[in-house]
């Protein structure tokens, strides 16, 4: 096999989400159909038009040592926790170099967020206004810069092949994983820690998204507010957290005897060039990403049995995504079990592609698609098999799944994963 077309596999997963402090507890909650959305009890939330969000289940301050945590924006704290879990899950016992199984010069880190250290930026501006120049933290810049989660993860694992942060709003996490896949495929690295993180539960982002009329205002029914594909959906619910995977060339994983979860078949990328926030209503851009995926890989539509949809619970976006799947896959969509896990996690923006990749890896590995909650009356425009009520067993044999992520700006990223054993 040529060095520019190496097979990439997933050997480690990690997450900290509104459903649990690690990937195992998150997965258990996804299968059980538990919502992570709750009423915001903070004083600042009392007068906001949106008073619900999917807040992290385990506060990072309970996990990270305090001197470390106080130098990291919340988004970097989440990323570091998820990355450390994924790193250990991949079987590494220390940072690269100290663990001889990984060469630091062949290790990369690609971790993205949609908004970066927004709470640090806003909080430190409050400090400047209220307490004066001298009290602004000297850690402000390294905390708020959007590459901070990637850089901190890179330092933690000793990644010297390259550390990157692609930013594409709600597609950022998926784009990070796609970038990492290319680093390995093209021979720049053998192992890459990749994922997405977001920590934007703060009055300004909530009010700003709310004023765009993008968010659900179902404050009286937090757990029922995120309802992708339901006829009564009225916007997304903001979530926070991170999901990270360890990607590795198949040869490198085999050489060290690593447990392989799934193969990453490849990715399809496109841009709508339509509107800065509105999805292109026919799903043209999403369809182009799906077609690019098929053209650039050996993936066969008949293999695809599961889709972790972008499905944020907005009226237009959910329909456009299904239309695009129909346009490209036709009747093959009928055998795809579609799950909208944002019904439980809320929308993690740049973190979504990270935790949804973790969920898709686990769905294939365990051959079980998580349910979509709050699907009481499926929108008649959504012509697809939406898993709901209980998890859906996936068939035996070689099966594949898609993880879709789309972002404000018209970014479309589709990741394709496939089982490696039957």
């Amino acid at each position: 096999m040529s060095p520019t077309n190496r097979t990439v596999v997933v050997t480690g997963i990690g997450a900290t989400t509104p459903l649990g402090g690690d990937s195992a507890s998150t997965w258990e909650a996804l299968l059980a159909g538990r919502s992570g959305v709750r009423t915001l009890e903070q004083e600042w939330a009392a007068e906001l038009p949106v008073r619900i969000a999917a807040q992290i289940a385990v506060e990072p301050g309970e996990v990270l040592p305090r001197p470390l945590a106080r130098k990291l924006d919340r988004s970097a704290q989440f990323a570091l926790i998820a990355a450390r879990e994924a790193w250990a899950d991949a079987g590494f016992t220390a940072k690269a170099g100290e663990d001889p199984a990984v060469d630091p010069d062949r290790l990369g880190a690609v971790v993205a967020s949609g908004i970066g250290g927004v709470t640090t930026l806003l909080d430190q501006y409050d400090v400047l206004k209220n307490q004066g120049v001298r009290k602004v933290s000297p850690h402000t810049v390294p905390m708020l810069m959007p590459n901070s989660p990637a850089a901190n993860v890179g330092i933690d694992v000793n990644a010297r092949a390259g550390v990157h942060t692609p930013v594409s709003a709600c597609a950022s996490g998926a784009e990070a994983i796609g970038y990492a896949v290319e680093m390995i495929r093209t021979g720049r690295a053998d192992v890459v820690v990749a994922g997405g993180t977001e920590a934007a539960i703060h009055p300004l982002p909530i009010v700003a998204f709310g004023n765009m009329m993008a968010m659900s205002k179902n404050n009286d029914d937090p757990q029922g507010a995120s309802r992708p594909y339901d006829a009564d959906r009225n916007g997304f619910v903001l979530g926070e957290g991170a999901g990270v995977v360890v990607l590795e060339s198949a040869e490198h994983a085999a050489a060290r005897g690593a447990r392989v979860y799934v193969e990453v078949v490849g990715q399809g990328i496109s841009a709508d060039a339509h509107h800065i926030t509105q999805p292109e209503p026919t799903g043209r851009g999403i369809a182009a990403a799906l077609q690019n995926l098929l053209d650039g890989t050996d993936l066969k539509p008949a293999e695809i049995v599961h889709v972790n949809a972008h499905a944020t619970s907005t009226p237009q976006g959910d329909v456009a995504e299904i239309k695009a799947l129909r346009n490209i896959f036709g009747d093959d969509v009928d055998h795809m079990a579609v799950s909208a896990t944002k019904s439980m996690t809320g929308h993690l923006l740049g973190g979504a592609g990270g935790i949804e990749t973790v969920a898709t890896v686990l769905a294939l590995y365990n051959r079980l698609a998580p349910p979509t909650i709050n699907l009481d009356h499926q929108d008649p425009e959504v012509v697809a098999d939406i898993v709901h009520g209980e998890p859906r067993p996936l068939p035996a044999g070689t099966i594949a799944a898609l993880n879709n992520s789309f972002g404000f700006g018209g970014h479309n990223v589709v990741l394709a994963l496939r089982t490696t054993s039957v």
Partner: protein
Amino acid sequence: MATKEEIVAGLADIVNEIAGIPTEDVQLDKSFTDDLDVDSLSMVEVVVAAEEQFGVKIPDDDVKNLKTVGDAVDYILKAQG
């Protein structure tokens, strides 16, 4: 006016808060950077906290001369007048 012992104890609490170093390890001969895990950014935090606690001013240009805990204690003693 804080005594030398009070300043050492105060700096020990500050370094513990910022870098997580046990207070008993914060001794006069210890280097902030090499021994106490206080990098140049965290040193700014130490200085600001010390200014507040001991009512002194430590200009940015002087911070680079404060290499050990003893340097900081002497500076603060002198600056208290």
